[in-house]
């Protein structure tokens, strides 16, 4: 579908909040993302931050990185945006007695959708945020605690998970370290894993171009600035497993034989001498050698 930018705001430096309109916008569940096609065949997902009940507009917040997000930061009111139908990825659990939403940085975006949903339906919820934009909106929706830094967040979180009613659920969106800290705090308070939910930042594949040597197939491939290592391997026709393309599922993990990588996965690939080609890249100036 083709959408049009009707408002551009800067909620904090490096972030751009876009309001998009279109005909007959499909509804979407909390935590859904909008796949935005920022160049032909190049799609990045952005969390929808509004209430998805018969929405008049789509709201997304984009952190400036490179590739697609740089392109979106250049958009002005009136510009067209190509998008696909919203996809669900991080929904709330409707049976929860209470929802604890923990937001780190721009990871607040899917949880803003959650907060709007819970406020609409009168569900019990609270938000803990660190370094997050949109605090004014969150404060209007319900109870909000803002931490100065990660350490203070951990201190604030302990009594929350300790005192929350039975069958509360916690949802964290932010960097892997925050996700791990929240999960540890909840487990320490005897929460079962089924009540602990997290969505890591969806990392964009783009970065500086680099070269990869594929030892087993004796091929050399150049990874362009706006493609992922996995896409580059695809391009030359090598079969490589994959599933989530977000560095979460571990399907695409490959042994890293030589070279220094910038790891962006959430499965500790580096510790095992491996790399997740869907999200990770070469460190500046490095050439990687893979067992592919």
């Amino acid at each position, binding site marked *: 579908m083709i959408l049009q930018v009707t408002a551009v705001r800067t909620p904090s430096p490096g972030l751009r909040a876009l309001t998009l309109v279109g005909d007959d916008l499909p*509804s979407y569940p909390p935590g859904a993302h909008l796949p935005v096609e920022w160049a032909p065949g190049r799609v990045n997902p952005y969390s929808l931050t509004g209430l998805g009940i018969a929405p008049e507009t789509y709201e997304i917040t984009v952190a400036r990185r490179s590739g697609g997000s740089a392109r979106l930061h250049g958009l002005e009111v009136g510009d067209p945006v190509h998008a696909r139908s919203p996809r669900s990825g991080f929904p709330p659990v409707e049976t929860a007695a209470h929802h604890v939403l923990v937001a780190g940085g721009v990871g607040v975006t899917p949880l803003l959708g959650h907060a709007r949903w819970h406020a609409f339906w009168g569900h019990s919820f609270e938000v803990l945020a660190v370094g997050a934009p949109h605090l004014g909106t969150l404060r209007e929706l319900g109870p909000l605690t803002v931490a100065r830094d990660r350490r203070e967040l951990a201190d604030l979180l302990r009594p929350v998970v300790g005192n929350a009613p039975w069958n509360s659920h916690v949802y964290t969106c932010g960097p892997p370290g925050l996700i791990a800290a929240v999960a540890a705090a909840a487990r320490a308070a005897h929460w079962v894993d089924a009540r602990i939910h997290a969505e890591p930042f969806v990392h964009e594949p783009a970065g500086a171009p680099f070269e990869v040597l594929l030892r087993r197939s004796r091929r050399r491939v150049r990874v362009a600035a706006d493609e992922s290592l996995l896409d580059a391997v695809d391009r030359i026709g090598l079969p490589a497993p994959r599933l989530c393309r977000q560095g979460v599922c571990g399907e695409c993990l490959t042994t890293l034989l030589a070279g220094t990588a910038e790891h962006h996965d959430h499965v500790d690939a580096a510790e095992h001498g491996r790399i997740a080609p869907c999200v990770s890249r070469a460190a500046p100036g490095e050439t990687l050698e893979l067992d592919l």
Partner: protein
Amino acid sequence: MTEVGGATGEGAYPFPLARDTYRISANVEPASAPMLHVGADHADVLALRSRILDAEPRRFVAAPHAAAASWDALVWLLDRTAREQDGVSLERDGLRYRWTDPRRGVEQEFVFGDASTLPEHPLTFAGRQVEEDVVVLGARDDRLWLDAGMVVFASVWSLAFDHGMSFAELHGPVPSPEVFARAERFLLRMQPGDAYRRLNWGLQLDDRPDLSLDAHPAWGPRRARLEVHDVGSEVHLRTEVQHLVRLPMSGAVLFLIGVRLLPLAEVATVPAWSARLVSVLDTLPEEVRSYKDLGVLGSMAADWLRRSSA
């Protein structure tokens, strides 16, 4: 509910057997319009649905946590009806809706999510507007759960008994559990707005759509005695047109079951259908024959169809 046959054309009977043998499978295909059926007896079917529900309130269940999914189902069903059926409309201004079905003189305004603006639960209000039975399956913990529904035409099951069960538990009596484990994974991967269709089938002794366990005293004894005088007019092929929709706002799965009954005499008017049903009944695996309760009824139907085509 009972219809005349015809293999082609508008309103053609959805003959459910795609091959000469039948095995239990998920057999889903992408849905296409119309998803909601409007038969010649539309008003009668809707009146019957309301009569059964009003007499037996347990044909409706809804867990408290299914509120959002129920409203989601209501708006999806009314919107779908308005898109597919002439004269019917669903107008919206923000969260305020107006539903009009002039065929039945129904006009209702409501505010989305505000229970005080509807005369009854959103799911029973929706269930009275369509011929299909309505089930809402919530997605949690990588599984589906029967959270809510209005089902008055169940085929040998009971909504009230099944309320709260997981997808695996719901299909406990079915012979091929692995098929349903795969189906559940498929359904959980559906994206908001996705819609699929599948057909299920059986045979029954009359044209009663309500074969629920709740109403077993009304139909069970005759079925047990296999009391049939005229096979061609009394024994019916029961096809269930099932739709599976990932509801857009809540992510719940909406399961719609439309019942379409065709007397064997009408099946016999399409030789290809008759031959296929005979072949399927002759080759049905024992566990499927037993699950569908076709031990004697299946051979009775096959014999009749063979004789009538000879």
